[in-house]
């Protein structure tokens, strides 16, 4: 087997202990299998967690929030991290997803009364995706990225006013109250959130490893060059934006099932726009692992900060954003590279 031969190590990498370890393993086994093993073990660990940790504890709630953040951040990551288009309208897609779920439930459109109905959740993703295509085509056809950021922000603000003035359909600032009583335990929310987080991460992983992902990266690097190589820029950008919004919408749907009270203040809060940006940038923008790390860190800071620090904590998160951007512009994932480069 050609792959099993150990090539002579380069002098610089030979000093790295992890490379030394790898040189004893068959080459083919090295990265891919370790990664898969770690991922499977992590998913099993999180999946079985409710059996030995009280699922109604604050810690389980914290993990639920982390999974929610992962879904949200992966949706944004696909658009901003890989395609380089900074969307400032995430809260609109999130709210659209939540409102779609609430309206379908209240009007009993699909005739399904159980929670986490896959059909309802998919529809809650499709509606934001359609919205994304509608606003994506005019804003993304401009060459400069700023227009896209501003355009999504404007569209989101228009949507906020439409929801606030929606009359009977959205109940304005009062919001919609779902008739269900909810589960008495967090367990089902925890597992659904975990499943969706894994699915969202997998979706981003496979899209970015596919031909489409290559095209998206090419667009991010140099649009003119990508276009001259026959990549239909607008089509790919809109596609990425629609998929990202689809994921965001499903996240909104999950939150709607959790919250049961859908009002503009809860689901159209500007936090839902800043959170994915902060999570992705803190973790490492344009990587699959970055948003996951970022979600756990930000989840801890926000949920525990809220409990421990109270009113002061949003102020500290502002300082945190500034510090991260100033000293860690490539995120926590990039920290590893920076350390190894320095060596």
């Amino acid at each position, binding site marked *: 087997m050609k792959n099993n031969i150990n090539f002579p190590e380069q002098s610089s990498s030979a000093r790295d202990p992890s490379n030394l370890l790898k040189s004893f393993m068959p080459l083919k086994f090295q990265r891919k299998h370790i990664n898969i093993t770690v991922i499977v073990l992590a998913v099993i660990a999180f999946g079985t967690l409710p059996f030995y940790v009280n699922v109604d504890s604050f810690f389980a709630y914290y993990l639920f929030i982390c999974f929610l953040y992962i879904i949200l951040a992966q949706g944004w990551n696909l658009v901003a991290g890989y395609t380089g288009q*900074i969307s400032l309208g995430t809260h609109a897609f999130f709210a659209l997803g939540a409102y779609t779920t609430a309206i379908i439930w209240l009007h009993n459109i699909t005739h399904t009364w159980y929670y986490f109905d896959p059909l309802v959740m998919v529809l809650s993703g499709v509606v934001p995706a359609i919205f994304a295509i509608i606003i994506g085509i005019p804003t993304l056809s401009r060459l400069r990225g*700023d227009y896209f950021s*501003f355009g999504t922000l*404007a569209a989101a*603000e228009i949507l906020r006013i*439409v929801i606030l003035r929606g009359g009977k359909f959205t109940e304005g600032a009062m919001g919609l109250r779902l008739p269900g009583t909810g589960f008495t335990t967090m367990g089902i929310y925890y597992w659904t959130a975990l499943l969706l987080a894994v699915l969202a991460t997998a979706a981003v992983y496979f899209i970015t490893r596919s031909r489409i992902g290559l095209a998206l990266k090419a667009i991010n690097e140099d649009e003119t060059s990508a276009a001259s190589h026959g990549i239909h820029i607008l089509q790919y950008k809109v596609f990425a934006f629609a998929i990202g919004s689809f994921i965001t919408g499903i996240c909104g749907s999950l939150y709607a099932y959790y919250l049961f009270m859908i009002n503009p203040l809860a689901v159209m809060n500007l936090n839902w726009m800043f959170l994915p*940006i902060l999570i992705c940038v803190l973790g490492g923008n344009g990587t699959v692992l970055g948003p996951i790390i970022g979600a756990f860190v930000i989840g801890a800071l926000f949920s525990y900060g809220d409990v421990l620090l109270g009113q002061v904590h949003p102020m500290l*998160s502002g300082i945190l954003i500034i510090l991260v951007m*100033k000293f860690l*512009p490539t995120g926590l994932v990039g920290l590893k590279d920076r350390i190894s480069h320095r060596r």
Partner: protein
Amino acid sequence: MVLIIQDIVNGILLGTMYGTAAIGLSLVFGTMRIVFIAQGSVIVFFAYLCYWLFHLLGVDPYLSLILIVPVALLLGAAFYYGLFKEAAALKDRIGSLLIAVGLMFFLENLMTVVWTPNPRAVVTSYGFYAFNLFGINLTLTRLIGLLIAILATLGVFIFLTKTLIGTAVRATSEDVEASTLMGINPDRVNAVAFAIGIGLAAIAGINFASTYSFDPIYGFDVALKALIALTLGGIGTVYGALLGGIILGVIETLGVYFVGSAWAQAICYAVFFLTLTLRPNGLFGRTS
């Protein structure tokens, strides 16, 4: 009819405030390509400073300009050297945007802690004084606001065209690389642009404080309005930003008159969206 004209006049006076904020945004965006989303929060912050000076020391709001504007200029330079220097040099602008967002978060919550979320207003003895011209009410504070805004715009315009560093600022916003090749120090130019931007925010803040009531969260709204004014007027021209602000102010007040305040906001954002997609260089911007 008189009511509509009254609305247009009020809109112009409101718009000058957006315009002043938009000029600051325009300078910062032009030189550094930073969308300084915290501009609105900075404006509200200066409005609070003005409020404090007025209530604790009894300083007249317009007199406090002499105190607040130099502080603002220094603060602007400090913002650049302390926060944005590294991020401005990067091609990736998400870093600078996020720093601005962080600053906005920080300021909003700082103001909520220090001054509570309740709306505040600076109520002066002459605050309700108004002229009546052909049946149209002209509030004194708004007229002074208009005057100050026009003076500030003129001042910035003269600074940008007549002084050496002003020319450097304009050159940098035309083409960063070429201006660096000409021997312009980008750091100094960016710091000056930032200082003027924050200085204009201070002027807008004082105008705002003496005319309207304000609360900490209002900043984001003002920043968005300034951004709309900027895109309407076109990036790169000083008078364009002011005119864009005035147009926006008129659209907003007329919108409030005809369709109510909530839908008026929607109209503002719709105008924003349409300008972005149909006339990305703005109404008065240079066509590239």
